């Protein structure tokens, strides 16, 4: 709970909201306001999501028949590579920290801004530069190495791999600086009375993510820099013909990229903690467990990268160690899932769109997580490696996990960000289609992979045809669902859209203690925190308190 003087009316603030506080294009391009930056990130990541999504639809359409349909093999390589690269570096890694994290972190902490507002702006510009570089790659020769850039192909290919490597290098710095900003903000900018155990779990999640961003991304930087240098100087570190070793590249690459998948999912965990508690009006079960498991995941995630190298020629002993540690990283994740389910139990659940996404998450992420165990077992991984089973697994955790959580989070905080409500009925319709479409698309791929369909192939044996076709139809349903979800959010911009109060969900965390949308300096008076953000007051039976 926090206090504002009784005379200050949150619904009619004396100051303009942050959209209106400053006018003009320059005020947006040069803003240091974390909320404006959050909105700009949100718009950018949604754009890149649809670009990369379009590429995915194209490649799924090619896979409707076993033979070549409308793209050549090298074009197909480019489709899946750019789908992966754009989704990873321009959407999923920056999305939650950049969009929701930037917007919410200072609000949840009761601060006026992040610790280094100008660095925040720089992060956004760097991200934009990286986006331009990666999009230029599309136009200047493309990229066909797979998003994983494996050598020696990536050092020898004639496509624009060098430019792509540089683009990734630049994107990495945006990630590092954002993480740095967030760690310092959480350490130094909390409101009076907000001890570590009174922070919302979303903050804990973003904090753990920021730690990983700081520790892992520099290794990615040096890895892509070495690839870039090797393309031009031929040093030979990764090239066996010159005395180097391609498996070394894989070690370097996955030392970042495995923790990177936790950069992707941890903020999603934070969002789910917020959605499930607020929309079931129940104090979270196991606050400490969820908070500390985020940190545990951050640490253990650095110890498991070798599970991507089981069949690469890595030594067996090292493989066994990595396999064991990978099982270990599942434990804190499972703790979270159990805690969330326990949170829902006995709660007053409101089945609105954010809660639908929260429940969808529990289903899809659990499947994704459990199928990861098949892959971390070396014996089964030998058969499943590089098949569609892997593709299905990571789409279940990344899309079924993060994307669903992210969309749910966008719905949950949409009233705060825009000051208006999304359209509930189409929101639910979109969610339903996303859920059905997603499970059809990727559920069948588990079976495809189990039966031996390799990944990154554009032509396949006729035996796989039916399942591929089912998967493709599913992807069209999924795409439709996502478009409808987007429309339901955009409906908030109609003149007739209902306005949102400062706290439409009756939540307790600090971001709901200011107007919707917030004023430029977030809070009229510095809030004082006296209790947990999950101590929900008595509710009325309608489930909404606006």
């Amino acid at each position, binding site marked *: 709970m926090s206090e504002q003087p009784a005379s200050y009316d949150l619904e009619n603030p004396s100051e303009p909201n942050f959209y209106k506080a400053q006018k003009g294009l320059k005020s947006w391009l040069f803003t240091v306001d974390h909320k404006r930056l959050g909105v700009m990130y949100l718009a950018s990541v949604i754009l890149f999501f649809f670009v990369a999504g379009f590429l995915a639809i194209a490649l799924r359409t090619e896979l409707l028949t076993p033979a070549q349909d409308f793209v*050549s*093999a090298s074009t197909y*390589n480019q489709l899946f590579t750019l789908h992966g690269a754009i989704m990873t570096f321009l959407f999923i890694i920056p999305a939650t920290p950049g969009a929701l994290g930037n917007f919410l972190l200072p609000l949840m902490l009761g601060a006026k801004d992040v610790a280094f507002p100008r660095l925040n702006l720089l992060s956004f510009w760097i991200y934009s530069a990286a986006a331009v570089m990666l999009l230029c790659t599309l136009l200047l020769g493309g990229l066909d190495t*797979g998003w*994983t850039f*494996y050598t020696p*192909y990536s050092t*020898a*290919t*004639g496509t624009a791999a060098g430019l792509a490597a540089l683009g990734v290098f630049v994107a990495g710095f945006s990630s590092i600086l954002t993480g740095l900003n967030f760690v310092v903000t959480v*350490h*130094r900018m*909390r*409101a*009076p*009375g*907000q*001890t570590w155990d009174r922070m919302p779990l979303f903050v804990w999640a973003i904090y753990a993510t920021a730690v990983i961003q700081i*520790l892992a991304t520099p*290794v990615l930087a040096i890895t892509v820099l070495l690839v870039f240098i090797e393309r031009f100087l031929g040093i030979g570190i990764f090239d*066996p*013909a010159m*005395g*180097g*070793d*391609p*498996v*070394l590249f*894989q*070690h*370097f690459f996955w*030392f970042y990229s495995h923790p990177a998948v936790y950069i992707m999912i941890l903020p999603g965990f934070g969002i789910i903690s917020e959605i499930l508690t607020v929309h079931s009006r129940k104090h979270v079960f196991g606050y400490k467990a969820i908070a500390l498991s985020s940190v545990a995941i951050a640490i253990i995630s*650095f*110890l498991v*990268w*070798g599970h*991507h190298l089981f*069949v*690469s*020629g*890595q*030594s067996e*002993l*090292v493989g066994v*160690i*990595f396999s064991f540690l990978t099982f270990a990283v599942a434990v804190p994740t499972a703790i979270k899932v159990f805690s969330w389910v326990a949170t829902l139990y006995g709660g007053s659940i409101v089945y609105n769109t954010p809660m639908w996404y929260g429940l969808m998450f529990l289903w899809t992420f659990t499947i994704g997580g459990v199928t990861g165990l098949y892959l971390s077992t070396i014996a089964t991984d030998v058969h499943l*490696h*590089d098949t569609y089973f*892997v593709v299905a697994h990571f789409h279940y955790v990344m899309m079924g996990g993060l994307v669903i959580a992210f969309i749910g989070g966008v719905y949950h905080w949409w009233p705060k960000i825009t000051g208006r409500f999304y359209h509930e009925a189409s929101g639910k319709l979109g969610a339903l289609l996303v859920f059905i479409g997603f499970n059809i698309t990727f559920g069948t791929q588990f079976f495809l992979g189990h039966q031996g369909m*390799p*990944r*990154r*192939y*554009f*032509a396949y044996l006729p035996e796989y045809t039916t399942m591929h076709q089912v998967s493709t139809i599913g992807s069209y349903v999924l795409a439709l669902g996502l478009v409808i979800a987007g429309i339901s959010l955009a409906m908030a911009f109609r003149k007739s859209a209902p306005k949102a109060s400062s706290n439409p969900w009756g939540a307790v965390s600090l971001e709901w203690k200011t107007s919707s949308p917030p004023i430029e300096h977030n809070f009229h008076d*510095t809030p004082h*925190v006296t209790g947990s953000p999950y101590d929900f007051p008595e509710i009325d039976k309608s489930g909404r308190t606006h």
Partner: protein
Amino acid sequence: MSSLAYLKGKELENPVECHHHVAPVSLYVVILLALFGLTGLTYAVSFADLGPLSLPVAMAVATLKASLVVAFFMHLKDDDRYNLFIFLGTLIFIGIFFGFTLFDMQARDALNDEQRTFVRAEDERNAGNNPAIGISNDPARLAAWEAKHGSHDEEGHAEEEHSEGEKAEGEH
């Protein structure tokens, strides 16, 4: 503006809490002289024949020099302990990176010796011997492959399906 200042949720007694550990000049000079001394030691030791110990000794001296710089010039000794935690934590993660990778590379070294891959393969080929792995040791397969794709010394870019199949190896 409130008259009380807060830091990390707790009230500050002194609203302007600045961390002022001003070291005397003499301390800095002593540290510099120690650093020069240790550099001299590194140099001298590099001429001694310590066998396998030469790398650990060199690293130990370098670590000592680094510790002096970090503790005194970078003020870590008198600073907020969280900064020390960050520094040590970073070293631990670097250790993890080095540890697993070096361990695996060592095993691959043994594997390479056994399999005669990489440059040894190059040497062998130059000497006129076929390497022990791959299709080159089976003349029939090699001939068939060369007939389809041209000389096997050419880098990359076989046609269509073949590159997918080859790329599937060793990924993810």
